[in-house]
């Protein structure tokens, strides 16, 4: 009886735990994209009139960084200019003292994650690990995303030689290197930040 019951319980556990799936693997690249924007609440965007955009894109990979200007990067910078103009700002050269400056970055981070096994505190604590199952496990993930920042050049802190970021956007998800999606991605990031509009 015990042997039969044990077999049933073990089989059921394997059967039930094998039911896990990935709930978002059916999302298309566009549907998987996430646009995160934030702003400095003290900034008065109506006080800015002109803007400039950096002439290249910053590429950050883990602790290393550099600059690049691929055709994809050009498309991105160009679309940033279009969006800022549509919001009512005037595009000027960097040497014309713009009120705000915009930068873009391609960031790739590789993370070594440490996650706790949710069962460990209940079983591992008493038995020193449930049949050798560790209390923690590690896994590595890599994520790339676009970051766009708006810097306040008009009110630069000259004493501390510091520029404040008054708005930033992150574009995450799938298809970020697809040139067909660039315009839509940049439009979405600006589109949800209605407070930027001068109109």
């Amino acid at each position, binding site marked *: *009886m015990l042997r039969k*019951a044990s077999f*049933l*319980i073990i089989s*059921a*556990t394997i*059967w*039930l*735990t094998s*039911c*896990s*799936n990935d*709930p*978002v693997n059916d*999302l298309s690249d566009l*549907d*998987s*994209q*996430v*646009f*995160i*924007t*934030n*702003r400095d*609440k003290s900034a008065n965007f109506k006080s800015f009139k002109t803007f400039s955009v950096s002439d290249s894109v910053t590429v950050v990979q883990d602790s290393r960084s550099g600059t690049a200007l691929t055709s994809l990067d050009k498309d991105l910078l160009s679309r940033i200019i279009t969006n800022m103009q549509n919001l009512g700002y005037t595009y000027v050269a960097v040497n014309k003292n713009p009120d705000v400056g915009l930068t873009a970055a391609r960031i790739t981070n590789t993370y070594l994650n440490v996650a706790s096994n*949710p*069962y460990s505190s*209940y079983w591992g604590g008493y038995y020193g690990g449930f049949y050798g199952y560790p209390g923690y496990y590690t896994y590595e993930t890599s994520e790339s995303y676009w970051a766009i920042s708006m810097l306040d050049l008009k009110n630069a802190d000259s004493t501390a030689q510091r520029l404040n970021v008054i708005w930033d956007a992150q574009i*995450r*998800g*799938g298809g970020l290197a697809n040139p067909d999606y660039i315009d839509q991605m940049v439009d*979405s990031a600006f589109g*949800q*930040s209605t407070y930027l509009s001068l109109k």
Partner: protein
Amino acid sequence: MKKLLIAAFLFAGMIPVYAQEQAPKLYTLPSPYDRYTHYQVTARYTAAIPVGSFSSNYIDKTSFENYSIALEWVFQNSFSVGGELGYSFFKKRLPRATYQQSDGSEISAIQTRTLTQYPIQAFVNYNFAPKNAAVQPYVQLSAGASILDYTLYYGILADQQQKIRPTYGIGLGSKFLFKKDGNFGADIRVKYQGTSFDYEYVDKGVSAINGSVGLFYRWW
């Protein structure tokens, strides 16, 4: 002599008849399921309808990804006790929307809300009918714990929380024997199940009405 032989044959022929009359009446004895405690294993497929604040605040979509297996010890009286191990998966997808976060940021994304639950419960059944009745209604009380996985996806970014929390349930069901005195049968059950949980959108626990159909096998 010839008459004696004939009489002997007749007598010999009567012995088995007499023996048959004296043998226990096997077919009039109560079934072993009536006479002994026995065991029962039931596999169920369940449709789960979220209720309460779990439904109104997080997922209101009926889930059809729920399974369980129960092992039961049926006593000679009207009670039975056992354990049940289950799996439930709730999911709801929302169209793209912008969500305001507590830090002031805005997130535009397609939300995929999920909740996975592995309830492990002990239960007591009170059975209203004899062990060999074709229809055997019962009521059930259960209590145990659930391994919960709350994962809220913004696009492909996940906010996850895993906990082990108390679970309880109350149910009403019936068994249907396929054959009198048989080993196999069907089981239907409607059960309310509640689990305490508090994280983000789910602030007053996970509650659902579960309607299940199952098959059981019993042995002694």
